[in-house]
């Protein structure tokens, strides 16, 4: 005892000092935060209370109306799910905030059954229920009703869709077909991104994050950064607006070789990107109407510098040699959208939507330039008839005009293309037994100038024995229209060295071309689905969906003898032309089960678990290639845990697993991909109601590949990264 005395004295002295120092610092910091006066927005003259009394009921009506609250959208989300007769999953703005992801496409990995593979820092391959590829042409993506599906290449240019996450209200993801309401290309899924009404984004919002990849090969080395600023105000009693600006920089991922630190390889590799965008939104709520006007301009530089090893995406057509693909894509997008809806007392509603979207893409190494303009007008009317029918009908017209300019090693004939789609739909939701049994049946009929008239009917049954359980079943047909690249236009692609695609393919140095097929029809899906949703207790919920998809007329690229237009003005004939053509020869079946469970044992603890099992028949393998997409992995799994140890702290952990699949590439090689895990950890401190300070560690599992190298894809290795973010809202 005695001998310990001096030691404890020593400890106590220093301990005291340290303790005092710590508390002084903490007090100073907290005091500074707490002391910051709350500026009230210009339009609001009400006094904003500085302190929250423990009993809110003692506050005046004025003060209650002046309080900033934390809004939860859970109840609205539940309502969306309750009556759905499809495999729907909703990502709310709270989910986004707690995921740590900074780019829109990354978020979709949270959805059960959706496969998200990073191909490189600026390329994503995203799909539901199979066909995973960068240009997955079987999923329709809408932002506030505006289609961002690329009619030229098929699929979505995810790098251009990095819309500010702070503006997103929710993302509704439907796995499975939705052609009856959404029309063509809504085959395997629909992603509806819905941005916030400007009425709820009033005042200032600023956020900035900086971070670093644990590995980064570029010189000069830069930080990953994200900056977002928004101001929302009131125009008059019923009209609100917001303007926002966002800038992003993402440093490169690592090269696909084992030694990611090898300087020579790292010096070549560059998939960094830089993107900025500015947008506005105006919302008016005069009486029973809701008007929305929104617009945005975006510009981004996306680098595509790859290694030459076994990947030769760029050919010199003159001498049949390949070189480094030192390309930078400069993408520019702009759109304007207007929407009007009117609600009536009898629960009926009319809605109209119009938008124009323009895209310009230029590439630096081969002077390719693409211009795409899309104009779209839609209307929709929903009404009740005889008490047991809810009828929704509408019409739409879309015109896509595109143009390819100044090609060196790619040449389109004709250079100007046009796609017109017009159609209508009618759907009736019949109440067979009040509050218990509903039947929804309808079809869309569309005409397009590629394949003519397309019918996309569906029948859906919903049984809700009580408020806690619902069972649904659906049969539907959906089609995927041909796309212009490789399917409609005649495309000359430059030179292909002999034996490029395996021994004897092509036999001699050739020119390559996609030749169009006038007999080409749409790809068709007939899908059978069954779903069950239950909330056995207030704390738990389970959502299960099973599907059986039968595809016919899948496109398969066959070697043909043919001729192609040459950029020199002449015709390249069959003797030295390596010609491929899309044909409707593929069929296949994919089936699976998707499960999503939620458990909220405490107000401060939320656990989300999902598991997906999928399988397919052997004909699917023959129909799968780099163009049409890979078959789904057998297993996918994800788990997220949100925990609030204190009211002002948020801790988040999440893990995502994607099982092994394979790619069947044009060299007739089947190659297995590796299964991979993604593991993220983050913490957020909210010193006051206006401020969030977050620290995130992403991809803690280490450097890994999420897809394969092939003749057309040169993927990067995803690398661990971390970032810190400050976000302030007044």
């Amino acid at each position, binding site marked *: 005892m005695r001998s310990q005395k001096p030691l404890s004295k020593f400890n106590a002295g220093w301990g005291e000092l340290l303790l005092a120092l710590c508390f002084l610092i903490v*007090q100073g910091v907290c005091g500074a935060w707490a002391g910051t006066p709350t500026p009230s927005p210009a339009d609001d003259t009400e006094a904003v209370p500085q302190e929250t009394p423990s009993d809110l009921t003692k506050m005046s009506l004025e003060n*209650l109306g002046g*309080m900033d609250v934390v809004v939860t959208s859970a109840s609205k989300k539940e309502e969306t799910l309750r009556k759905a007769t499809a495999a729907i999953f909703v990502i709310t703005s709270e989910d986004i905030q707690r995921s740590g992801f900074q780019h829109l496409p990354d978020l979709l990995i949270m959805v059960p059954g959706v496969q998200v593979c990073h191909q490189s820092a600026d390329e994503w391959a995203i799909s539901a229920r199979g066909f995973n590829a960068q240009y997955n042409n079987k999923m329709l993506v809408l932002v506030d009703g505006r289609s961002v599906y690329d009619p030229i290449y098929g699929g979505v240019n995810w790098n251009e869709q990095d819309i500010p996450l702070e503006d997103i209200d929710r993302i509704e993801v439907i796995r499975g077909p939705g052609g009856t309401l959404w029309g063509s290309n809504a085959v395997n899924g629909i992603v509806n991104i819905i941005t916030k009404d400007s009425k709820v984004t009033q005042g200032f919002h600023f956020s900035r994050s900086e971070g670093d990849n644990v590995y980064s090969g570029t010189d000069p080395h830069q930080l990953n950064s994200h900056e977002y600023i928004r101001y929302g105000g009131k125009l008059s009693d019923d009209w609100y607006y917001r303007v926002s600006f966002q800038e992003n920089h993402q440093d490169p991922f690592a090269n696909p070789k084992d030694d990611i630190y090898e300087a020579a390889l790292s010096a070549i590799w560059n998939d960094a990107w830089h993107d900025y965008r500015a947008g506005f939104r105006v919302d008016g709520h005069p009486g029973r109407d809701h008007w929305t006007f929104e617009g945005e301009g975006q510009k981004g530089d996306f680098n595509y510098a790859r290694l030459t090893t076994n990947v030769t995406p760029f050919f010199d057509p003159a001498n049949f040699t390949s070189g480094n693909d030192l390309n930078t894509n400069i993408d520019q997008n702009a759109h304007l959208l207007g929407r009007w809806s009117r609600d009536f007392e009898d629960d009926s509603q009319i809605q109209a939507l119009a938008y124009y979207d323009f895209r310009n893409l230029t590439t630096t190494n081969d002077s390719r330039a693409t211009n795409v303009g899309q104009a779209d007008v839609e209307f929709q009317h929903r009404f009740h008839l005889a008490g047991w029918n809810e009828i929704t009908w509408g019409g739409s017209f879309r015109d896509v005009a595109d143009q390819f300019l100044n090609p060196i090693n790619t040449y389109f004939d004709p250079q100007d293309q046009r796609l017109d789609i017009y159609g209508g739909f009618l759907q009736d939701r019949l109440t067979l037994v009040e509050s218990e049994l509903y039947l929804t049946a309808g079809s869309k009929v569309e005409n397009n100038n590629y394949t003519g008239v397309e019918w996309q009917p569906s029948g859906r049954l919903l049984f809700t024995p009580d408020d806690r359980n619902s069972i649904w079943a659906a049969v539907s047909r959906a089609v995927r229209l041909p796309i212009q690249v490789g399917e409609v236009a005649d495309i000359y692609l430059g030179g292909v060295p002999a034996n490029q695609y395996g021994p004897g393919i092509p036999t001699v140095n050739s020119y390559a071309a996609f030749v169009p097929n006038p007999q080409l029809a749409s790809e068709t899906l007939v899908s059978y689905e069954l779903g069950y949703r239950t909330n056995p207790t207030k704390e738990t919920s389970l959502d299960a969906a099973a599907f059986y998809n039968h595809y016919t007329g899948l496109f398969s690229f066959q070697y043909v003898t043919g001729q192609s237009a040459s950029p020199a003005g002449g015709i390249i004939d069959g003797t030295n032309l390596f010609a491929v053509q899309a044909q409707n020869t593929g069929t296949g079946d994919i089936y699976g089960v998707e499960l999503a469970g939620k458990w909220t044992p405490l107000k401060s603890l939320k656990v989300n678990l999902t598991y997906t099992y999928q399988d397919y028949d052997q004909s699917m393998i023959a129909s799968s290639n780099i163009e049409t997409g890979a078959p789904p992995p057998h297993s996918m799994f994800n788990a997220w845990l949100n925990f609030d140890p204190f009211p002002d702290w948020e801790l988040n952990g999440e893990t995502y697993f994607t099982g092994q699949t394979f790619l069947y590439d044009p060299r007739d090689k089947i190659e297995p991909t590796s299964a991979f895990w993604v593991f993220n950890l983050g913490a957020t401190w909210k010193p006051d109601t206006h401020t969030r300070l977050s620290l995130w560690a992403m991809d803690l599992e280490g450097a890994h590949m999420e897809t394969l190298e092939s003749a057309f894809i040169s993927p990067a290795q995803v690398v661990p990264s971390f970032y810190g973010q400050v976000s302030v809202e007044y």
Partner: protein
Amino acid sequence: MKRQILTFVSAFFLAFPWVETRLQGQEVSEYQVKAAYLFNFTKFVDWPQTTLTPEKKTFIIGVLGEDPFGGTLEQAVAGKVAKGLPIEIRRIDDFDPDDSAKLTDCQILFIAYSQKSRLSQILKALRKAPVLTVSEIENFSLAGGVILFDQVGKRIKLVVNPGAARRASLGISARLLQVAKLYRSE
């Protein structure tokens, strides 16, 4: 020993302002504010004499549909009285068209978001009954509900439909009308 006590006491006083700051920084959930509003309505709304008869034992606040309040509504009204009566929170899981008495028993009825698709039926069943209907469903004013919780920015504002209040024979005080936006039906 004395020294240790001194250390603890000084640590406590040093820590105290910090703990206090943390509590001040606590976020207020939208349903805490909505619960406080519901209680406040009992002070700024007058119900007809025929409803609040002397036989009445409790003042009833009903929650129809999936309850979003958690426990905050009970916390807000705990130990409080409305119009001289103790307050009772009554939960009604689902709307039953054949038993509208369940709804008309309430003085205030909060209609949860889960009832969105049945809203017009519910309001039809309540037509002219002296019940203060309150909801957060967007088209509530248009459908004929009395008070809508309207989110503007991060704040919860009130929209009052005076016509609906009149039909329900409710008197809304000038104080409440002053802070609310009035819904103008066309």
